[in-house]
């Protein structure tokens, strides 16, 4: 039986204002997506002269066609997929055991290790020493260099550790009574329990990888290793150069704006496909029902 909730006028206004604010936020998030998509399928002229603001003007797929015909686009797309998938898996493979160990009071030197992990959140050596260090480790201009150099970050470890700490120790004890060793406990009990937290951390890692630009640009010389974001930058630079050389692109059906839009739209597709599949882990906890406190 669900009884009808009783709202005071104050509650009603609270609800209305909430709804209004959420609608505004949703529009703020939605607008750039619609705008960029429209831009990518408008004519170069319409985009450059600022006539596109919501819907496509002078519909054309030439910008998309131009991007899709570029071999380097496909290479960089594949690279980004590699960096995202392999990078995220590597991160999880390192972050989860580290966080699990750090969540256990019996870990020797736990306070110190925890302190040093957290320390890196606030202080680091700086960009140049980091770069030089990567050079010394022979990680520059290498795909694995990108994967390894950014495999762990303290924030994600701490996020995961906090989750593991919140799991009732009786799960571990019950598994231990059943004869499970540490790896079995982690793999068969804690990881399934931690699905929401793991999804969160995986998503943070994946987004960082997908959008990763700066270090990829700094570290990678070889064009065949660059990710999508670096390709986008390169494309913009190339078009600017062409524009300067040719005077203008009046004859072209696309422009800098529509090309940019097209690359962004194409790079959003996997996110749009994957996110709904993992969304349930963010909304539904799996902790319910196992223990009763």
């Amino acid at each position: 039986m669900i009884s009808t909730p009783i709202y005071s006028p104050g509650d009603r206004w609270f609800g209305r204002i909430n709804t209004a604010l959420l609608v505004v936020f949703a529009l703020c998030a939605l607008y750039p997506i619609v705008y960029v998509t429209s831009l990518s399928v408008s004519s170069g002229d319409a985009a450059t002269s600022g006539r596109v603001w919501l819907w496509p003007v002078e519909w054309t797929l030439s910008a998309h066609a131009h991007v899709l015909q570029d071999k380097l686009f496909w290479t960089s797309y594949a690279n980004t997929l590699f960096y995202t998938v392999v990078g995220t898996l590597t991160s999880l493979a390192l972050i989860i055991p580290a966080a699990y160990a750090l969540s256990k009071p019996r870990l020797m030197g736990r306070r110190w290790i925890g302190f040093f992990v957290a320390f890196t959140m606030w202080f680091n050596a700086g960009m140049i020493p980091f770069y030089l260090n990567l050079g010394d480790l022979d990680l520059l201009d290498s795909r694995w260099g990108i994967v390894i150099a950014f495999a762990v970050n303290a924030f994600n470890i701490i996020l995961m550790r906090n989750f593991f700490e919140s799991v009732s120790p009786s799960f571990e004890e019950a598994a231990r009574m059943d004869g499970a060793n540490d790896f079995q406990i982690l793999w068969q009990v804690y990881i399934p329990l931690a699905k929401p937290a793991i999804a969160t951390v995986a998503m943070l890692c994946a987004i960082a990888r997908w959008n990763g630009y700066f270090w990829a640009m700094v570290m990678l010389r070889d064009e065949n290793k660059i990710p999508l974001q670096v390709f986008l930058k390169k494309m913009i630079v190339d078009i600017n150069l062409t524009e300067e050389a040719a005077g203008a692109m009046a004859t072209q059906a696309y422009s800098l704006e529509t090309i940019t839009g097209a690359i962004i739209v194409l790079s959003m597709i996997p996110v749009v496909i994957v996110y709904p599949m993992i969304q349930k882990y963010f909304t539904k906890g799996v902790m319910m029902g196992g223990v009763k406190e």
Partner: protein
Amino acid sequence: MAANVSLRNVAKHFGAVKVVDNISLEIEPGEFVVLVGPSGCGKSTTLRLVAGLEQISDGTISIDNRVVNNLAPKDRGVAMVFQNYALYPHLTVRDNISFGLRLGRMSKADIDAEVTRAASILELGPLLDRRPSDLSGGQRQRVAMGRAIVRNPSVFLFDEPLSNLDAKLRTQMRAEIKRLHSRLRNTVIYVTHDQLEAMTLADRIVVMRGGVIEQMGTPKELFDAPVSSFVAGFMGSPPMNLTPCSVVSNGDATSVTLGGTEKLSLPPAAREAINGTEQLTFGVRPEDIRLQPREGTQPINGLVELVEPLGGESLVHVRVGDDLFVMRAEGRTTVESDRPITLHLDMQRIYLFDRKGGRRVYHDMEATS
């Protein structure tokens, strides 16, 4: 199947804090032993030492005549039911129950047979493919027991298994645990802070206080012959009335004063037993206070403060000076609040405790046995 469990001078400290202090306890094969005591007295820690979830600081624990001090939990032949059940939420009831078996090298057919056996004992058959979140509290409790049963343990350990259930379900599950024990006949060590659970389930009760054993014995022994005012105040519902009293000697007669005004003369045996001790605690069970005089009773006067009807009987709270006495009035009582009342205390069944240390100094055992 059932094994004996022996704790000899077992101690556990966390840093400087002694949580379990030199406990010795011999448990017979098949015995149902309940550890009872107030929260924080070290019951769970003692149980966890037996389980192997904590390392003992000192002493020896043997199970089935084998020292297990350094044995992993799984090698001790024990199974534990946790207070919060600790069912794996991502697994079905079947997979929860068979979790431990699947870790070992047991064949699929044998595992299925074990699960079926446990399910039939606990009537879990129709629930096997559900997840813990789809079960009621009592069902989860039974699954937790099923997980223990399939391990074929020689010793069952229970840590407050019923404290998360509502009163009615608790009574029901209590009966079920008792039934399970009479069927499987394993040794059971059961922790609770509820004296009623202890009284109804135990072959033997161990009352703990501050990390040491205060008293152990059958439920009847603890009820009739508590060694201290602590045990007396713990067992029984409502527990024994305990009130400080002063001793007045007047020639041959010795009497105690309750509530500042009410005088009761002590039996000669009590006079000898107290032997000059002046700081006493007077104890009388609610069952030994009557509304009508009888042979051996003495009256005290008070004011009814509260009447709690329980259906078949009522609990009457009576103020006597500064003290409060609770008594049971059978049937439909005519006692009303705010009225003066005379209580008749059965002097053959009173208890006297030394107020320092709380040890019992007097009780007439003949009268209660």
